[in-house]
């Protein structure tokens, strides 16, 4: 079927066609002599990271089944290096928010994200995770997971087809490959501040922290 002039607001039509805007932006940066030190080591590290993104096995609803299909025989995301789906958030590289996030689940999801080790990425899969989807008007659904987590890639669909998911995963790879130019969404505070926060966390007698005694091990 031919696509007749789709109107997509957030992206220029030309970009949609070749979809290499990330690379073209990097090229522009280089040509304009922006002071970016392109270390060879950086490049190797990012190449390594982008080809070895391990997902967290996380699924709330329908999209999760399609996510399993992406891992299964016909679509097989192991070909691209997404091989090892880890059940422990400590060892995963990205979280694929596959399915609706409800008010009850939101703190748990945030916590899962916090448990992951840097560098970490988030993919919002399906209408529900992007905007609430068909349940936007519900009293118990979060309107888009980007309200609580920084999202790297959005994969629309309800649920998205496995091909779309593979495409989205490859977009994430491209994004990781040029991460040194655009920074990574998680480093919004600098190292000193982070250490300060950590120290406060370790010494604090905050109520919220003590909750852990009952409610930990979301893994």
């Amino acid at each position: 079927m031919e696509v007749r002039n789709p109107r997509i607001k957030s992206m220029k039509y030309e970009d949609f066609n070749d979809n290499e805007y990330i690379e073209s932006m990097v090229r522009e940066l280089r040509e304009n002599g922006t002071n970016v030190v392109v270390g060879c080591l950086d490049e190797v590290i990012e190449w390594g990271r982008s080809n070895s993104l391990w997902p967290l096995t996380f699924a709330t609803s329908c999209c999760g089944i399609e996510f399993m299909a992406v891992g299964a025989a016909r679509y097989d995301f192991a070909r691209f290096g997404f091989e090892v789906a880890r059940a422990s958030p400590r060892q995963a590289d990205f979280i694929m928010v596959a399915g609706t996030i409800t008010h009850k689940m939101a703190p748990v999801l945030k916590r899962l994200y916090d448990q992951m080790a840097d560098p970490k990425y988030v993919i919002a899969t399906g209408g529900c995770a992007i905007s609430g989807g068909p349940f936007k008007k519900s009293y118990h659904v979060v309107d888009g997971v980007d309200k609580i987590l920084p999202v790297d890639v959005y994969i629309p669909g309800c649920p998205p087809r496995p091909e779309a998911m593979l495409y989205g995963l490859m977009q994430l790879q491209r994004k990781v490959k040029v991460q040194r130019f655009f920074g990574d969404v998680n480093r919004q505070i600098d190292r000193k501040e982070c250490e300060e926060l950590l120290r406060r966390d370790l010494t604090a007698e905050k109520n919220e922290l003590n909750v852990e005694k009952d409610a930990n091990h979301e893994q």
Partner: protein
Amino acid sequence: MFDFSIITSWIHGWLTSWMPLGLAVFLECVIVGVCLLLLYAVIAIVMIFMERKVCAAFQCRLGPMRVGPWGTVQVFCDVIKMLTKEIITVRHSDRFLYNLAPYIVILASVLAFACLPVSRGLEILDFNVGVFFLMAASSIGVVGILLAGWGSNNKYSLIGAMRSGAQMISYELSIGLSILTIVVLTDTMQFSEIVLRQADGWFLFKGHIPALIAFVIYLIAGNAEVNRGPFDLPEAESELTAGYHTEYSGMHFGLFYVAEFVNLFIISGVAATIFLGGWMPLHIPGWEGFNTVMDYIPGFVWFFAKAFFVVWLLMWIKWTFPRLRVDQILTLEWKYLVPIGLVNLLLMVIVVVFKLHF
């Protein structure tokens, strides 16, 4: 068969010709250590790649394809990523034990790895109680796992570690018994000697029935010892998320991951050494032409071919069988494998005493 001790003694002679003996030995130790670690890393990478491709083939998939030809560079990506990933320190954990655990596991694994005779003249740790040393060294690993479970302040980790402790200590018995069966046959505990005694036929064939039983028991117990296959309870993904290494991230987790795969190789390497003739080529009595051709193939090729064949066998088992339950694992060991192993040992003694072996 080419003897690598010619090269090593030449290096030794050359070094001692212009420097004091102590310094030369020290230098040699460093070189050997570096080579050992390099080999260890290479084996780990090959094993991980093999695991992925083999399981993909069993599962009607392709496995890694995009990075390098047939995905061969995939594991390097994983290594780079793992090295640069954050290592999380868990609050309320026992900081010292938590950080120590992965190193103990990897230490045990490297020590055991050093015992494997790769080719003639390429033995690193080779002395008269080599088998004994291997058993002792590989047992240190369970301490690391227990520490990891205890130190992480996580209930899943703790359950995983306890399961692992029960399982590994039990199955060590069966491994010991099945190796002992072969020791009875060879009357030596030195690995190089064990290999040399197999020049006229592998022990699997020489010891016929009891050796075959011992081999099967060894494969089952070995699989359990490295927490794989149907015995992967300590990290049972669907029950305990990741078992004893749930809380580990970055390279700490990487060490566990690597140790698991190299341990599998060690188990297979030992199986190849004591049952399948180690680096000895395949000889068929009477076929002189065939035997000479086989002799031209270098010893380390034979060793690795045999070891990877056993690895493949164990992977086949892992990807086919469902997981056992903890009580079934212990029943299997204490009610079946240990009694059979003991009777088998007796059988082997009878075979040796009455010279029934080939």
